[in-house]
């Protein structure tokens, strides 16, 4: 018995030695979210993840020699206002992948962020969080954020230029049904960063024994982001072109303002202008956005948001944010945050964020 125990301990030690670096990390974020303007807006409530979705993750790297390494990430989201998982029956809903890294860059397989979402996080002054999130008018939702069954390749950065490719299998009897692919190329040198991303999602549903083939076609998003870091202020720019079915899903799929239910655009243009900078001990964030719906419904919208993050330490911050949307011709855009769809055209967040 003792020998077995020693043997197991030996195996554990060997495993720990071979696994050169494993980290537990996460975000716990809770605050008060107040929403106004929608027919079902709840007023004030305690919410999880308004600035940054609450999560816990495990990350590891093993150095294999000759510049090669293996890596993995397993990350799950949870709502700390109630303790429930973000997604039922899914243990690692946020990220789950394993990969190899070397001179060629990095190849990973599993559930991963899309190239378009990575661009939006990098160039949104609110980093896709808070009431001012780019999600309010840009189509950063669902499989535009992350996809399962995905193979990615990220190139190394050469003279500031890097690229990324992603392919997600639809895993249906029709090979093209449900598949998604995308890519990005970027340039970052000193204070300048520019990135272009493409996202292509097929929304067809293959026929089964009992259901016919459903044809929706594909949605395409092309997004350009740019930023310039001055000593105290950073300027942000994002422009998006969204075309086709499913290219612009609405965050709030109900009918938040009553009347005729809003129609998700199939031909739109999105623009963000913003800035972030040091004011006092913290960071001030501001953006203004415009959605130009070029369908016959002409459901345009414009928005603005402002926020402030006050760091108590490297890992703990207090924050406050406010945003407002003007919907036109029955458009149904709502003020979201990093974890919730929102239910009105005005939103306020006051919260506490800790990372570990």
């Amino acid at each position, binding site marked *: 018995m003792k020998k077995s125990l020693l043997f197991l301990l030996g195996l554990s030690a060997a495993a720990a030695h071979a696994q050169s670096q494993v980290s537990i*990390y996460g975000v716990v974020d809770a605050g008060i979210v107040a929403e106004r303007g929608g027919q079902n807006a709840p007023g004030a409530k305690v919410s999880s993840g308004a600035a940054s979705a609450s999560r816990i993750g495990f990350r590891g790297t093993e150095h294999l020699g000759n510049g090669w390494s293996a890596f993995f990430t397993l990350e799950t989201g949870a709502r700390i206002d109630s303790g429930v998982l973000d997604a039922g029956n899914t243990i690692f809903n946020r990220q789950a992948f394993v990969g190899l890294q070397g001179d060629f860059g990095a190849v990973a397989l599993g559930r991963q962020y899309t190239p378009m979402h990575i661009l939006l996080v990098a160039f949104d002054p609110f980093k896709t969080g808070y009431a001012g999130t780019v999600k309010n008018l840009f189509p950063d939702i669902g499989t535009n954020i992350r996809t399962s069954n995905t193979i990615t390749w990220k190139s190394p950065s050469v003279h500031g230029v890097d690229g990324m490719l992603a392919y997600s299998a639809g895993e249906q009897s029709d090979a093209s049904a449900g598949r998604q692919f995308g890519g990005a190329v970027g340039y970052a040198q000193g204070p300048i960063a520019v990135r272009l991303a493409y996202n292509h999602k097929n929304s067809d549903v293959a026929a089964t024994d009992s259901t016919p083939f459903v044809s929706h076609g594909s949605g395409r998003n092309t997004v350009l982001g740019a930023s310039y870091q001055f000593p105290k202020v950073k300027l942000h720019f994002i422009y998006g072109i969204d075309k086709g079915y499913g290219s612009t899903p609405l965050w709030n799929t109900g009918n938040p303002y009553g009347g005729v239910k809003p129609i998700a655009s199939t031909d739109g243009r999105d623009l963000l202008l913003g800035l972030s900078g040091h004011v006092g001990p*913290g960071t001030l964030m501001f953006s203004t956005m415009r959605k130009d719906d070029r369908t016959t419904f002409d459901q345009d919208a414009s928005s603005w948001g402002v926020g402030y993050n006050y*760091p108590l330490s490297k890992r703990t911050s207090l924050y406050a944010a406010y945003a407002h949307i003007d919907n036109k011709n029955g458009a149904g855009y709502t003020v979201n945050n990093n974890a919730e769809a929102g239910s009105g055209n005005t939103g306020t967040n006051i919260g506490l964020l800790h990372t570990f």
Partner: protein
Amino acid sequence: MKLKTILFAASFLTVLSAHAGEIDKSPYGAAVPDTAPAERVVEIRPGDRWANVTNGETVKFVVGDKSFTYHVWTMPNVNAFDLDKIAPADVKAAGITVYVAGSAWYRNS
């Protein structure tokens, strides 16, 4: 009563400041041994004015025939800093700005 309030406030502040002393408030991160494995090697050549890194990375900076390794972990409100603020005294790092991109670890949804 007033004295008690002052004593309570003083003791509370003392506890707070003792606690604050344990918090990592180094604005840019921490130096690590130059032999530590680095995720990125950044070579500073004559005439260079900047370097780009990612928050959370361990970076080996090579300046001429000198080098040093640093784990970059900045305060949330620091996007850029001067390299000579973290470089050892014998490394010529004046005039180089380090721009820090956001960490993929805490990338939002």
